């Protein structure tokens, strides 16, 4: 029984970490339909800048804040200079441009911080394990579960309960109608993009104690995040949440049952889901 609980917790914490990582992509790619292959690069920047801030201050919280804010700023600059001109140009152009960004940032990070692998000790308050129903669970992983759930609640709240959420939905669903209503669509897009970037950066920093930080770390996560967003259904934060759960548990179960092929489970599940429900599990209309 304890074993079952522990494995369930494993699946859940992996899911929540995936949600943290993919939430930003759910906003930019899922909602705004902007292809940002450099999402992984933002994730990486958040980790490295956060680490630098942590090294300077000794504070985990400061590292997290610095990582998120710096990535948000970076996202702002990128959005204004590179993404904005490409919104009307569609998939090819955005894919090529962001692919180029991946190369650029991978090398930039290596030039600034070197190629060795960096890590972060878990803050003392979150160090150690605890017992839940007889199962030993790492405190830091519990913390991540908490973060993921909190983020989900906040995002859900914003999108269903606030005016800002309604405005964002309007701009994303039908740009022309929104503009004719007087909404400042370019500003809204920028806001969504920047928040998406900040979330990616924060996730990057939070993942460091578990996964470490290194140049190119975003490339594997990018694929998983893409899978999560598409599988769950674009245009919906709930979709990303569901997608995270599916992918997270698929990976966990895969690791228990067919260790070598664990990652394969994710792709098989993705292919099956998309064949049956092309718009994703919670998707709206197919595009």
């Amino acid at each position, binding site marked *: 029984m304890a074993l079952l609980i522990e494995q369930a917790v*494993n699946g859940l914490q992996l899911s929540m970490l995936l949600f943290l990582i993919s939430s930003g992509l759910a906003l930019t790619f899922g909602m705004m339909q902007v292809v940002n292959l450099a999402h992984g690069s933002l994730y990486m920047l958040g980790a490295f800048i956060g680490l630098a801030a942590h090294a300077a201050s000794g504070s985990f919280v400061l590292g997290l804040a610095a990582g998120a804010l710096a990535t948000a700023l970076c996202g702002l600059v990128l959005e204004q200079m590179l993404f904005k001109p490409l919104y009307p140009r569609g998939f090819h152009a955005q894919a090529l441009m962001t692919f180029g960004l991946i190369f650029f940032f991978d090398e930039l990070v290596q030039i600034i911080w070197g190629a060795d692998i960096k*890590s972060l000790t878990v803050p003392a308050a979150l160090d*150690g394990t605890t017992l839940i129903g007889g199962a030993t669970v790492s405190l830091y992983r519990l913390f991540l579960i908490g973060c993921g759930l909190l983020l989900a609640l906040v995002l859900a709240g914003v999108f269903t309960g606030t005016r800002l959420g309604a405005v964002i939905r309007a701009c994303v669903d039908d740009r022309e109608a929104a503009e004719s209503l007087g909404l400042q669509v370019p500003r809204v897009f920028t806001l969504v993009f920047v928040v998406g970037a900040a979330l990616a950066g924060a996730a990057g920093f939070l993942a460091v104690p578990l996964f470490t930080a290194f140049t*190119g770390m975003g490339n594997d996560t990018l694929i998983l995040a893409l899978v999560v967003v598409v599988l769950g259904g674009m245009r919906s934060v709930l979709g990303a949440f569901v997608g995270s759960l599916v992918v997270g548990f698929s990976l966990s179960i895969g690791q228990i049952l067919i260790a070598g092929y664990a990652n394969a489970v994710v792709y098989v599940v993705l292919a099956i889901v998309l064949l049956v429900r092309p718009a994703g599990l919670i998707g709206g209309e197919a595009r």
Partner: protein
Amino acid sequence: MARIPAFSSRLKSRILAAGAVACFGIATPALAQDIKIGTVIGFSGLFGAYGNPLFETFKMALEESGGQAAGRKITIIKEDDKTDPKYAIQLVRRYIQDDKVDFLLGPVYTPIAAAIRDDVHRGKTFLIVPLAGDDGITREMCSPYIVRTSFSSWQQNVSLGDYVAKNVGKRAALVTSNFAAAHQQSAAFLETFKAGGGEVILHERPALGTADYAAILTNIRARQDSIDVVYAFLIGPPVAAFTNQWAQSGLREKIKLVGVIPMADEFWFPGQKDNALGIIGGGPYAAGALDTPANNAFVARFQRKFNRAPTSTEVGGYDAGKLLISVIEQVKGNLKDKAAIRRAFSNAEINSPRGYFKIDPKTGNVINNIYITRVVKRNGVLTHELIQTYEKVRDPGTGCKMSAP
């Protein structure tokens, strides 16, 4: 007048090609009598963390002889193999056919060694392998043109397996990445571990690159009463990730973690921090474990440049440099007699920081001691202490059929 793309682009590519080769020749004014070395090392991306320091220690060794040997200057053509076997093959072909190098240095990434082996052998150009640990390159794929200064997977592990079975515990759980090199490593470990009375309780084979080990740690926890030791072999960032997650899992108190020294050495300490304490390792080198004049001097010089102690990776590069100098001096700078160069490799005596060092004439692999170590803290810095030494461990070179060059 309209320009035609197909014509101009193809012509452009050829002009570009010719021009680049010309420019490149001008850019590095290597004189006819210079000895040319081409690097097949990954400098960018993740493996750059190995490739860059290794290259620096190689150059360090050359500098100790003034950058020359037997009166001939040594010039290095430094190119990045992008840690891609396909690109490495093309690079090696360029080195041999276009640049006409005398020696090749590399690789770091094991799959590249197997990929370039044929071109090296056919091209009759000597390759000094400073890191890649794949057994095959000095066994069934051996060649008179390939020598290795690092280790074979087998060497690292046989001594460790014996030590663990006799001194640490007889019931082991293995966590090894699911790919060929990891299987080689664990098979070598099990060879002597089982011979010493050990048994395998659990063998997890996570996919290459797995970052999250929660499920595996849970499995180990479920059987913790029947497990004394965990042997882990992973590569890349997962090494630090696993170590940290292991420490967070609360299993450290009861179960010992063991692995080859490169699983917990100065390369990883920044990523593992105190989570590395107590890990038992086996391998040809650990900076803090060897108190000899040669090693102390090497460590001091390296420390001044890089702010940390060197690992077996860097010793592999350093010894490659010293070996090269020795070989060139032995043949008095005459690189035409390949058989003589091969003999020079086998006869070379270098004062390696690792202690005993000899190139096995039968396989081209290095013969050296294997040290058993434990990670400790000295003066607030993570380092290794020496527990036991296995002398002059020599890879059997099974399947190596080599004729003189």
